[in-house]
């Protein structure tokens, strides 16, 4: 919340002083994080990770998320990164999709049939993301930056971030390009700057208390483009991975604290 935001809020919510309003919203955010049911999603994700599925009836347990087959600890904090076996930069969901098709023998169409769930039925991707991201708690965000394709993804992501198009002429920077702004009451972090990108990237994927849903980074980008009045970004497309890469490299070095809990 910006200083200005707090002044306005405090005026409306008199007699609380601006400083108090800021403190109270921080307290709210702290308390919802403490009382978050996010571990329930991690639990279901773990069960799905170990569940044999697909034509080959195998689990995802030997999926290589970048640190070797089945190695989960710290894997999420190193994504997105280049994967030689796919000759492609991948984020978490893209890599999971890769393992579902290669290891489990599932078709991409089947595995992506329902990537975004709802409060009554979260998706497989959401559960798995919760579980896998949680295994990187405390590890510093360090997306791949050395392979030429990783550098390319970063540059593409950066260009996409500032690219204006769509029915409303928007780029990501239209909302996330200036310090201290908000949309309605919601803070808009200046995501192209490390100090603002860090706390955000370090807490996605996240549980949203407003709709009791667990949301992945792919969903976050998808829903931004919906509100920017664009067509829909394809799930696990290079464009979405590039944007994640740009944001994660910008946030590099921040210890991962997710899966987060948001308003």
């Amino acid at each position, binding site marked *: 919340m*910006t200083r*200005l*935001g707090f002044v*306005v*809020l405090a005026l*409306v*919510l008199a007699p609380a002083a601006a400083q108090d309003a800021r403190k109270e919203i921080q307290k709210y955010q702290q308390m919802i994080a403490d009382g978050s049911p996010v571990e329930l999603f991690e639990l279901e994700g773990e069960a799905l990770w170990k569940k044999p599925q697909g034509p080959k009836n195998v689990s995802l347990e030997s999926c290589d998320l970048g640190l070797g087959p089945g190695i989960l600890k710290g894997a999420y904090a190193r994504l997105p990164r280049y994967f030689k076996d796919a000759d492609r930069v991948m984020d978490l969901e893209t890599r999971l999709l890769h393992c579902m098709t290669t290891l489990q023998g599932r078709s991409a169409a089947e595995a992506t049939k329902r990537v975004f769930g709802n409060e009554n039925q979260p998706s497989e991707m959401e559960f798995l993301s919760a579980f896998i991201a949680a295994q990187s708690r405390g590890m510093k965000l360090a997306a791949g*930056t050395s392979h*030429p394709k990783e*550098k*390319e993804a*970063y*540059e*593409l992501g*950066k*260009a*996409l971030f*500032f*690219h*204006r*198009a*769509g*029915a*409303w*002429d*928007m*780029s990501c920077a*239209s*909302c996330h390009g*200036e310090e*201290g*702004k*908000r*949309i*309605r*009451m*919601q803070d*808009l972090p200046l995501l192209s700057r490390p100090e603002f990108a860090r706390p955000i990237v370090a807490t996605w994927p996240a549980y949203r208390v407003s709709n009791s849903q667990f949301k992945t980074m792919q969903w976050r980008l998808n829903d931004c*483009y*919906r*509100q920017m*009045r*664009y*067509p*829909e*970004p*394809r799930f696990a*497309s*290079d*464009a*979405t991975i*590039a944007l994640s890469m740009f944001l994660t490299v910008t946030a590099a*070095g921040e210890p991962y604290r997710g899966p987060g809990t948001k308003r």
Partner: protein
Amino acid sequence: MRLFFAALSLAAAPALAQDVQRVLQRDFQPRGQATMDRVVQDGVQRVCTESNDRPPAELAKQLEADQMKTIVFPQGSLMGDWKSGERTAQNGRGLQWTDPAGAPGGGSCYNCHQLSPQEASHGTLGPSLLRFGATRGSGPEMQRYVYGKIYNAKAYNLCSNMPRLGYSGTLTPEQIKDLVALLLDPASPVNK
């Protein structure tokens, strides 16, 4: 760290606007009313992207004049009903793939602007419009300015962040007139 980023930007050339256009064509898909023509940049979008929203003055003037020609001013009074205007200002829908095509959209005004003092939940991306009419007057010239600005903000400031709400088909002329009233009518809460 700074050195590292310098090295990074040297190693991979920045993606060009044409590359991005190609990527958008490949990686996005139409859904509902959100069709693929939306990722094809028009002149305004291209110039603003390429100049990082700081277009050369001459070019900006020329393109703003072109945008001005897109504005269709209705005959007669431009002042509608501020109460309907308030509803339109509150409404954040329209043109998204989740919105039904053809259904009246909203202006999303409160997302970015303060208007009626009663609405505490307003954004700060745009300037506060509190007491807009009370401080600037509400004569025909001002009505024409406000109508035009809402219809096509790019005619007044080429790289404005504000959507072209009339030009894009988000709002009908009636809705824009109602918003003019919300901003200018002395009876509107904006001016109380």
